[in-house]
């Protein structure tokens, strides 16, 4: 498996407090990597390292090397806007812009200059919504406001928005935590689809979701990456006792 993102010796500090300790991990291309671990172990912090979202937190300091293909993500010279074009993100709480469904999707391709004509833009909006399994539900109300959709629809709208600019990598931070089982299944199906063209890293608190959607799973605990292996190995026969205690509900 070709690696898409390669982190080596990553340390992250919030002021004095170290949130990630010497993390090294290879994220395989066109694979789904799940990150699991107890609350506060550093999953979201790690995810934010991958598109420099920690930059916006003043007290946050990131050390070590994170390569995206051959590009050093932590380099001062890096064009962060370009990076985020290639590394999209979906958050736990759906956060559509307070604009129409259409505008939510059209915004990214427009500001990144990916389209020449209105027709092209229409096409991107349609294919993104189709990929996110939302098209049929919204095709007649594209000019209604996005925040008027249900939670599950809003989350799929945010996924459609993320994929509209065709990022190579999609980061998802607990994307289904507010969704019902049907919407969750739709998103999981979508993740399966998306991995044909994208590399996906997903943080989830649902062990069964991690098991269902991912090929690799990493277990974090207290800022350390305790175990990283194939998802099958992690859920059938983990190599580390702490991993086993966590996934079987014996923690604490």
């Amino acid at each position, binding site marked *: 498996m070709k690696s898409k993102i390669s982190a080596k010796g990553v340390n992250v500090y919030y002021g004095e407090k170290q949130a990630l300790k010497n993390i090294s991990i290879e994220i395989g291309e066109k694979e789904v990597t799940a990150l699991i671990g107890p609350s506060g172990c550093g999953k979201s912090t790690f995810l934010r390292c991958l598109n420099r979202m920690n930059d916006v937190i003043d007290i946050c300091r990131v050390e070590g090397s994170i390569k995206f293909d051959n590009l050093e993500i932590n380099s001062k010279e890096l064009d962060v806007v370009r990076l985020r074009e290639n590394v999209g993100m979906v958050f736990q709480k759906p956060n559509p812009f307070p604009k129409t469904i259409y505008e939510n999707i059209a915004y990214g391709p427009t500001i990144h200059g990916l389209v020449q004509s209105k027709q092209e833009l229409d096409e991107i909006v349609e294919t993104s919504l189709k990929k996110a399994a939302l098209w049929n539900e919204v095709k007649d109300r594209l000019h209604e406001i996005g925040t008027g959709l249900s939670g599950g629809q809003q989350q799929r709208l945010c996924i459609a928005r993320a994929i509209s600019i065709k990022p190579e990598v999609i980061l998802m931070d607990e994307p289904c935590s507010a969704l019902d089982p049907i919407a969750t299944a739709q998103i999981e199906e979508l993740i399966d689809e998306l991995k044909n063209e994208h590399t996906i890293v997903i943080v989830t608190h649902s062990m069964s979701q991690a098991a269902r959607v991912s090929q690799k799973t990493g277990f974090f605990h207290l800022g350390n990456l305790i175990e990283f292996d194939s998802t099958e190995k992690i*859920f059938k026969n983990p190599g580390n006792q702490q991993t086993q205690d966590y996934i*079987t509900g014996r923690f604490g």
Partner: protein
Amino acid sequence: MNEKSHIVKSYEEQLLLLKDTIVKMGTKAEKQLELSIQAMVRKDLELAKKIITDDEQIDRYEFSIEEQVVNLIALRQPMAIDLRETVVALKISSDLERIGDLSKNIAKRIISIQEVISSELIKGLEIAGLKTVRQVNLVLNSYLHRDKDITENVWNSDEEIDQLTNSNMEMVLKKLETEKNQIQLTQLLFIAKNIERIGDHATNIAEQVYFLITGDYLEGQRPKG
């Protein structure tokens, strides 16, 4: 591995109950096997009848285990060691059910044997039979105590039972050439074969227990069954 308890006590209790049911079922199956050999040696028809009626208890254990396993999978979605615990219980219970069934079958055949059988033949069957009782006992202990070494020993000793079976069958076949109580002797052939198959089921259980403990499969060719 020394496992911590689950945070959810009712889940912990359900897994312990499953383990406990397997041990009870195993103990009963082992007892049925042991008694069937005893009934054969002593030609104890009353005991043979009791074995036949008691077999139903083993079936009930099997049903209970099946129900527990389906519930665990549906309601708890067990992972890692718990998943292996659950799946392995289902497989072990079906091997134990077969051991019970084959023991019952030995008892039935004892009842249908009416003439006196040469003590030399019975002795050979007794030796093989007691050896399988020991195998079943050991493998149940390995399950109870999560002892990988014992499972490997059980797995490796199956060949002895196969050899004892072969020589028992040869002896019976030789007698068949010269004696006229052929129906009775044929029953002994089946008993010899039943004992061998019980040994195979003990071996299957050893494989399951090994997988339960290690998450890996026993290496190498299975001893010829």
